[in-house]
């Protein structure tokens, strides 16, 4: 008897993991070896059910002990057999990544993507003029004239993408606003271009056969006496004629004095018909006035056409993985994308700067917002296999993951994308490395092409790792943890980031009933975007994505001869749906330009995506191509031709794909606000891909937070 017990104990001990638990099916096998007839199936006795070594004087007793707490039990079967029956222990729910989580309110228009914007603002039956005005109004509503944020991954430094500007920042400068107008106008099907004027940059939109100035930056446009919105040249002609008539241009002080008390209405004819100036000649934001307009358009070149363009592609895609929570706040903590440079945008502290915005529907308490992106990574193999880019060489331990095979390292690669720019980053790692083992932490900000060391953890305990410098101004990174050594365990991993968001685009509440809508999808996006100029290492460069350059320089991808090409690869963790490409480029001659091609078969065949066509000193285009079914990798090639000048200022490639672990899962949406100093909180769990509900605010709400997380 003692020998039998010893044999049982030895068998179980050999099978035990470091956490002292043994797979139940192995315990049953050991009891069978002792003579019990135990009939079981792997439908109930699943491979992932582990139990402590059972105690008991007899095999029958140990059988009962082994099944304790598993939801299973042994019942007598035919001929002295024991059948393992019961309620199957619930299998771990398949890991879910819920993507494209969009919460909107009926108080704020949806500008989460170009398509969403078009759906909201461009209505059937609109005239081109109405569409153009809608474009202008959008930019007025969602961005404020301010020293622009600099991400340093564009040639201008500052982001010009309208959707990014509206959702992440809500403030920028004239060149940015012009690029926003141009991008939206093109999305609405209108021609657009940029104009260089004195100390200012403005867009023109073409409709009814003419170009028209729509300055969203300074919040103005100018109807001519015939009611048609004036072009830049119309304004310049009018200003120059007025100055000539008066014998020359007035200086700044004289202009400021002239405009007061309605004096500006005696100025150039084209400027008289606008509603943009107040009685004293100031524009809505109060930053500029009639005097400035007079400077900006006086004596300009009538053919000064250049666009401070943008490579569009950004879209809001809030994704949630198990353990992830994203809080967007209608307030800020003084954190912003350029906080490492010793300056701050005025809207960080002075909400009064956007006093005019209420007239354009702004109900947010301020403009610049911060938020928190947190992820308590669930360290269960079944979860990570679905959620992580890689989870290999580890098994479930008692409190986390343990190296499965001493001869092979355990590797966990997590992708951490955000729609709101990362400002800070911290990782808290709790590990128990075995003797001679370690947990090596690395980070990649170029889609896993290169890895930067973060830490090597070779002592047990919790470690806080500083990711600030590695993630600042990034929208996507990957974290790789490599576990070496038999028994090395990882029992905790938590990530925390401060993020920046524009309060203006958040789905706000107002007093009374607020209709909230929820939607989710299944797409993720891998982006290739980096500066095409030297950016002093302040963000990624295009060359960080390892392009193959033939006959082009790294700087602006300028052609060094008549032809040249740049080819870059992009790979997605799920089936690719489409490739999108945005470019801001110069091709001075009609023969100059880049042909954009894509290959989904490693370069064996190439498909035409579009052309960046000259002649242009600078313009922006967007194009897309659907990926063939099952594609997970693509090459994008730009074949350039040059007889005068061909170069790229900005380039962004987005590969949209189906998240492999995507599914509809309950998402908790929590609003936090104050009414009369009392905190209110309303949590709604959206269980379907689309949902809607109402939040009623009895008093005027002071908006605080919008929190989204997967509901348990």
């Amino acid at each position: 008897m003692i020998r039998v017990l010893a044999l049982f104990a030895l068998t179980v001990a050999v099978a035990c993991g470091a956490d002292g638990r043994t797979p139940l099916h192995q315990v049953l096998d050991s009891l069978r070896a002792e003579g019990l007839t135990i009939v079981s199936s792997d439908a109930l006795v699943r491979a992932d059910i582990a139990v402590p070594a059972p105690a008991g004087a007899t095999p029958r007793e140990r059988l009962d002990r082994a099944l304790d707490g598993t939801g299973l039990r042994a019942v007598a079967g035919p001929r002295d057999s024991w059948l393992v029956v019961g309620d199957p222990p619930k299998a771990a729910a398949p890991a879910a990544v819920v993507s494209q989580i969009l919460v909107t309110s009926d108080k704020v228009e949806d500008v989460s993507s170009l398509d969403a914007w078009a759906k909201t603002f461009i209505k059937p039956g609109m005239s081109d003029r109405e569409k153009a005005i809608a474009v202008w109004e959008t930019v007025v509503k969602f961005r404020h004239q301010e020293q622009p944020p600099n991400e340093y991954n564009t040639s201008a430094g500052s982001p010009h993408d309208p959707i990014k500007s509206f959702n992440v920042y809500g403030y920028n400068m004239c060149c940015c606003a012009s690029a926003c107008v141009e991008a939206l106008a093109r999305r609405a099907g209108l021609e657009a271009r940029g104009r260089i004027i004195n100390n200012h940059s403005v867009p023109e939109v073409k409709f009814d056969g003419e170009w028209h100035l729509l300055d969203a930056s300074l919040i103005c446009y100018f109807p001519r006496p015939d009611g048609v919105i004036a072009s830049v040249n119309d304004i310049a002609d009018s200003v120059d004629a007025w100055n000539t008539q008066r014998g020359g241009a007035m200086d700044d002080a004289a202009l400021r004095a002239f405009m007061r008390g309605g004096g500006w209405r005696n100025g150039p004819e084209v400027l008289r018909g606008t509603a943009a100036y107040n009685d004293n000649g100031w524009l809505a934001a109060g930053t500029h006035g009639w005097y400035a307009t007079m400077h900006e358009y006086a004596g300009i070149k009538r053919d000064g056409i250049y666009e401070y363009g943008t490579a569009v592609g950004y879209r809001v895609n809030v994704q949630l993985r198990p353990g992830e929570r994203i809080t967007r706040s209608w307030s800020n903590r003084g954190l912003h994308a350029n906080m490492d440079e010793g300056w701050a945008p005025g809207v960080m502290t002075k909400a009064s700067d956007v006093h005019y915005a209420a007239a354009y529907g702004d109900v947010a308490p301020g403009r610049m917002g911060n938020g928190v992106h947190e992820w308590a990574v669930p360290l269960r193999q079944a979860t990570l296999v679905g959620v992580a880019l890689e989870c290999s060489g580890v098994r479930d331990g008692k409190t986390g993951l343990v190296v499965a095979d001493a001869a092979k390292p355990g590797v966990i690669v997590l992708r951490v994308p955000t729609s709101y720019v990362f400002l800070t980053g911290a990782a808290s790692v709790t590990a128990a490395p075995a003797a001679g083992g370690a947990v090596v932490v690395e980070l990649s900000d170029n889609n896993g092409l290169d890895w930067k060391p973060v830490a090597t953890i070779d002592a047990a305990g919790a470690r806080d790792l500083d990711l600030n410098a590695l993630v600042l101004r990034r929208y996507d990174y990957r974290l790789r943890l490599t576990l070496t050594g038999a028994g090395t365990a990882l029992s905790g991993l938590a990530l925390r980031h401060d993020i920046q968001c524009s309060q203006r685009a958040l789905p706000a509440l107002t007093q009374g009933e607020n209709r909230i809508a929820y939607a989710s999808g299944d797409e993720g996006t891998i982006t290739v975007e980096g500066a095409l100029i030297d950016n002093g290492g302040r963000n990624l460069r295009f060359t960080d994505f390892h392009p193959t350059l033939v006959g082009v320089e790294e700087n602006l991808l300028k052609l060094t001869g008549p032809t040249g090409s740049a080819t870059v690869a992009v790979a997605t963790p799920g089936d690719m749906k489409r490739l999108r490409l945005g470019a801001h480029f110069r091709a001075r001659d009609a023969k100059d330009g880049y042909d954009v091609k894509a290959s989904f078969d490693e370069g064996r065949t190439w498909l035409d995506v579009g052309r960046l066509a000259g002649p242009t000193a600078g313009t922006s285009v967007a194009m897309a191509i659907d990926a063939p079914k099952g594609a997970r990798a693509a090459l994008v090639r730009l074949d350039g031709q040059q007889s005068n000048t061909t170069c790229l200022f900005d380039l962004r490639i987005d590969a949209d794909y189906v998240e492999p672990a995507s599914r509809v899962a309950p998402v908790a949406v929590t609003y936090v606000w104050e009414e009369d100093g009392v905190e209110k909180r309303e949590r709604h769990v959206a269980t379907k891909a689309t949902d809607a509900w109402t939040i009623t605010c009895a008093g005027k709400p002071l908006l605080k937070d919008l929190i989204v997380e997967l509901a348990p």
Partner: protein
Amino acid sequence: MGEHGASNGDRDLARLLRLAGRRVDVDPVRAARVERAVRSAWRAHRARRGLRLRLAAIGLAAAVLIAIAASWPRTPAVAATVELARGATVSGRVLARGDAVAVGETVNSAGGRVALRLANGLSLRLDHDSVLRFTGDGAELTAGAAYIDHLGDGAGLALRTPFGAIVQHGTQYEARIDDAGLSLRVREGAIALTCDAGEFPATAGERVSLADPAGAIVRGTIAADDPAWDWAGECAHAPALDGATLADALTWLCRERGWKLAYDAGLAERAASTRLHGLPADLSPRDALDYLLPPCGLAASNAGGRLAITLPTENAP
């Protein structure tokens, strides 16, 4: 020194020894070293000589064995292997599982039953009081009942009876001889009886009776799950089901019981992916369901020979 000079040499040596007087004692260390060297050389010599001797012995033994084998009487071909036996004998010896039954031997089930497996995979079972002799080209049933289950493509087993010969086509059938004559019951597939009165085919669900080899055929019907088949199931030997899928186990069971197998929605896939562990080797169709379904979290209902696999009532949607 050559062998031919040895005797002269010995004499010379003796003379020299006598002249030399008493020998001086050898240093013991040196003596031991010399002894070790000599002993080692002797052992090596012995080993070489032993090898030669052993090779010679092996050769001789092989020759003897070949001669014996050539003159030994040949063992009769094995006709079947016993899978299950309860009281059956062959040539007076009591059969046990694993025994071989040779061509020419007669199996007598007496008061028991026996299940045999032929080389072609066919299962042959004998009911109580059956007598069957294996011939070179088949078998002869002279009393009692034989149940034949053959899934293979081949001819199966040519079975002769005093009433006629039966050929089968991928079938389960029973041939029974009693006081009333010969009766054939076909559970699956088809058979043909050839007798003095002619050739009479029968297919699944048919029963054919013949009182006299030249007499008239009487036809009737029998259901696949008729209790008349039960005896064959009781001596069925289950295949190795431990580790098999539930679907495979149920397929075997339903064939043995003559049931049609049906699954509720989604359960066929579950049965195909669920493996069973710890099943006893002597699983019988009678109690197999009790072993198979509860550990898989499933239940079954049986109506009209249709076994429907379902979720237990408390789990049903």
